[in-house]
């Protein structure tokens, strides 16, 4: 197993040969990753293994796929999972309306009974096939393999999970009417989960696993600086500190990095130079999404938030 990997670059971008360089490369792409995440991404690309990301909503799981797509200059193909998703929505489907139209046209042109089987063959060709995300990712041709983002796997059901397991192990799909389609190179697969349920171990075993936590104060300041460069330095620090405190406040839904960025953008849009009570009250909806949480913060810690 290891011989196959050795000497190959996997899907690594040029100029990256260890995890430290991966970290720098991610930062160039406006994504600040800790050492752990950078190592996980490095290994995923190098070993060509899927990367399974877990963590609270808004910690930047999906963002990983986006930054990789920019970094490798390759398309991002996204499959959003939901309950009841099946092969027709994830892999391929026939374009029934067009098939029917084709039959009718053939009829109108006067097809004889002998042409029936030929007509049938025609109907099940590429022309009438609708590629869904998984097939797109497998069929992609290009210098770099595409990024395949399988978002919120925990929302799909067991049947689909079992199917994914199959896809992720050999990246090939068999379409009965056409044959087996395999990937030239395995796509860079990123799976995310919010942990609404435990995803089956067999699926996780195929992947590298990383749990993304909320960032600490310094990293969060850096993230805001990188993503919302228009924000004043002082404001950036205040926001990051306030968000850190909010996370310690035992809220129903502690804010993630996504909320921090939304909040910063809202404040910048209002021309804020410094955080104050009135501004917090006005923009609270972009950080706290539960009424109870908002009440709570308004009641007990407005001043605490704004104070340095």
């Amino acid at each position, binding site marked *: *197993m*290891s011989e196959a*990997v*050795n000497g190959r670059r996997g899907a690594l971008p040029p100029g990256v040969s*260890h*995890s430290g360089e991966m970290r720098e490369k991610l930062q160039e792409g406006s994504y600040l990753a800790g*050492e*752990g995440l950078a*190592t*996980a991404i*490095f*290994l995923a690309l*190098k*070993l060509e*293994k899927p990367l399974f990301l*877990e963590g609270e909503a808004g910690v930047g799981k999906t963002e990983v796929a986006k930054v990789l797509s920019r970094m490798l200059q390759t398309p991002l193909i996204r499959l959003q999972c*939901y*309950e*009841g*998703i*099946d092969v*027709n929505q994830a892999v391929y*489907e*026939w374009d*029934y*309306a067009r*098939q*029917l139209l084709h*039959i*009718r046209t*053939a*009829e109108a042109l006067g097809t004889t009974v002998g042409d*029936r089987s030929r*007509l*049938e063959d025609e*109907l099940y060709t590429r022309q009438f096939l609708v590629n869904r995300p998984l097939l797109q990712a497998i069929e992609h041709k290009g210098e770099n393999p595409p990024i395949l983002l399988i978002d919120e796997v*925990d929302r799909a*059901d067991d*049947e689909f999970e079992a199917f994914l397991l199959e896809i992720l192990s050999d990246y090939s799909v068999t379409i009965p009417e056409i044959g087996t389609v395999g990937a030239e190179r395995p796509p860079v697969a990123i799976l995310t989960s*919010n*942990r*609404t*349920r*435990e995803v089956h*171990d067999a699926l*996780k*075993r195929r992947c*590298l*696993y*990383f*749990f993304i936590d909320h960032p600490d104060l310094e990293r969060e300041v850096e993230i805001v600086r990188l993503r919302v460069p228009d924000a004043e330095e002082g404001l950036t620090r205040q926001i990051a500190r306030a968000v850190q405190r909010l996370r310690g406040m035992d809220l*129903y*839904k502690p804010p993630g990095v996504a909320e921090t960025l939304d909040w910063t953008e809202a404040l910048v849009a209002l021309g804020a130079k410094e955080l104050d009570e009135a501004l917090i009250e006005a923009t609270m909806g972009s950080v706290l999404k539960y009424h109870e949480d908002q009440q709570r913060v308004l009641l007990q810690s407005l001043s605490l938030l704004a104070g340095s």
Partner: protein
Amino acid sequence: MSSETALPILRMAVTFGRLLRRAGLAAVPDRVVSFASALEELDVTNREDVYWAGRTTLCSRPEDFEMYERAFGVFWEGKQGLKVPSPPQKKMSITLSPDSVQPPKKSAESNEAGHEAVKLRYSPVDILRRKDFADCTPEEFAELYRLMADINLAGAMKRSRRLEPAHRGRHDARRTLRGAMRTGGEPIRHRYRKARDRPRRVVLLLDVSGSMATYSRALLRFMHASVASGEPVEAFVMGTRLTRVTRELTTRNPDRALREASKAIEDWSGGTRLGDTVKEFVDVWGQRGMARGAVVVVLSDGWDRGEVEVLADAMRRIHRLAHKVIWVNPLKAAPGYQPLARGMAAALPYVDVFLSGHNFESLQELAYAVAGASDDTIGRSR
């Protein structure tokens, strides 16, 4: 990397994997192989590289991290004392503890007169079904556990988003067109699909604090039977903290499952901070989706030494998320029971069905309530 260096790496990875398995992590061989191939791509002399290579390949959930960290320290950094969780000193006990709220009744009497206990062993199933768990002998428990395996704890049905062929419903273009091929392209017979029904998830939260000691063992067995049945059931145990035991209880062998589960429960028969643990459930699992649309069953006597508002608040949140909230309190069976425990009183407004759960028959009732069969006959609390 040359094969000379590769070999010791593989050997180290295998040894480390073995240590992790002993510590309770699912570091199965293919994970160990991934670990070894990850190490070959990184700098083995760099602590961080080795640490993260292991964490991404050998762990599969955040709960693994703590044990991984400790094992890593021992193996790679020569730290002392990996505390592999040992089986709890306090064995799960069905004998009555002195501070139990339930006064020892018949069991004590029959113990004094030993021959009477022998007679009870052969008590007909009917009597056994109604017998309070607190009064059962070990032999009777063994019989009860066999019976429990037959209780099917399946949640009320809900509409799934997955479609299946049906006589009416949404138009199924795929199958219609297939049929049309046979009739010269004329879709004469139209096909349909409709959403399939599937059982709702059932979430069981069992209180194992000291005051529940009389019942918690029997109820844990019941949880095992439910989880092992293959229905979508999630099991949690509430002591001083919340422990998820679904994975441990999945093993079909009941003794092994219970052993695994009690290994995971560090605070068997500890104090009660019911509010905090229920809150932990909502915060960590419930709100993220586990309680959404589910049937949530709390098995507890409602004793709470913490703030009752915390419990009330957590129950209100569960009630908002869940399809149905069922509270099972073994004390309810006592004649003239009043929900006097402060926690119980605080939680009741958010409970849809209030049951007793002190004997086998009441567990059957629970199964009915979970399946949503005739709620009204069971007696709603509100």
